[in-house]
């Protein structure tokens, strides 16, 4: 999960660090799809994903001066987003606030910008219904391409736990898709 910064992004980041909100908006436009997609899949709830996306960008604005440019802005933003979502999940704790609340499942509203068909829709639905930890590991490993050692680091869980949760997630998804 690394990447060299694109020259255009470097210029935008430098301008944003110096307080140029328009430059930051360009960075937002470039990366909002990836950030929102990550939030949506990790929390399985549309309105919460929108809030977390906004929180991630506000946090990014605050933290931009610490961006050292040794990875792409998108990679840095991606990691920051994961921290925001995981932080929310920890603070929500056992209350399961709004996650997967009835009527807020993002894949079911037939939005024109993200229509899904057949197995993709079924899969998105099944991912959103996974238990929280299994969903987190599945999204990070199988959708986003993180290794177990990286998940262990960012999610604060043992590598063995990450593997066990992935196995659980895949088993539940196979079962859901077969039914």
């Amino acid at each position, binding site marked *: 999960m690394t990447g060299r910064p694109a020259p255009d992004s470097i210029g935008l980041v430098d301008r944003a660090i110096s307080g140029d909100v328009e430059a930051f908006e360009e960075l937002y436009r470039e990366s909002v799809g990836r950030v*929102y997609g990550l939030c949506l899949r990790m929390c399985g709830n549309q309105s919460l994903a*929108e809030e977390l996306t906004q929180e991630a960008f506000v946090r990014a604005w605050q933290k931009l001066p*610490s961006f050292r440019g040794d990875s792409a802005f998108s990679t840095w933003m991606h990691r920051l987003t994961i921290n925001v979502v995981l932080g929310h999940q920890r603070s929500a704790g056992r209350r399961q606030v709004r996650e997967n609340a009835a009527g807020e499942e993002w894949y079911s509203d037939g939005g024109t*910008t993200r229509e899904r068909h057949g197995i993709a829709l079924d899969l998105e639905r099944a991912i959103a219904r996974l238990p929280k930890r299994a969903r987190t590991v599945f999204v990070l490993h199988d959708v986003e391409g993180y290794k177990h050692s990286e998940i262990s680091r960012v999610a604060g869980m043992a590598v063995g736990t990450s593997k066990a949760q992935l*196995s659980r997630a*895949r088993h539940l998804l196979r079962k859901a*898709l077969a039914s």
Partner: protein
Amino acid sequence: MKKFNCEQLLSKLDELVDGTLDDTEATAARSHLESCPSCRSEFESTQELLTATRSLPRSIEPEHELWSGIAENIKRQRVVRGGFNRPGTIGSRNLWMAAAAAALLVVSVTIAYMAGLEQGRPRIAQSPQPHPSYMQAAYGDLATELETARDQLRASLDQRQDDLSPETWSVVMDNLVVIDDAIERIEIALVDNPNDGRLNRQLTVAYRRQIDLLQRATRLPAEV
């Protein structure tokens, strides 16, 4: 040649699909798949799942306009830029020593846990604990409170990630994982022995040590 039965194959299924098995085990697994339709079906359905997953778009545009809320928040804050120091310039050595001290503290939990289990096994089997259900409930409540406190501190620490150097963050995270692992082992053991006072005590000790580490980490001065 190494051979797998169904149970062994299924325990390695994810690693086989991900291509992370070593050659010897991969050969044994594939050999088993050739002769076992049931396991082959499991293998193929997992492959299909991954194929479908990889075809999902990683980018999804939000339905609502989110920028205006972000811009408003940014303007309200008007974050003062500058004054940030690069890593290694402020007391870096002291922070490392603090982190290392925290690491030593944390590792002791695992040792205590292991020692506790080793010493406890015979006695646990031979002598029932007094008022086990009361003790379990009391420890259970305490563990829940400690877990809540731990989660709140962890959320606070997350807010500070960019203030700490990657090295310090890594040391803290590595040691949180060590305790998480210990907690998980104790919780698994408690499933079979929910009234085991020694295990319940070890669980609360592990949570307290984790809280101690988190408190130390959240108090570290900014490094970057």
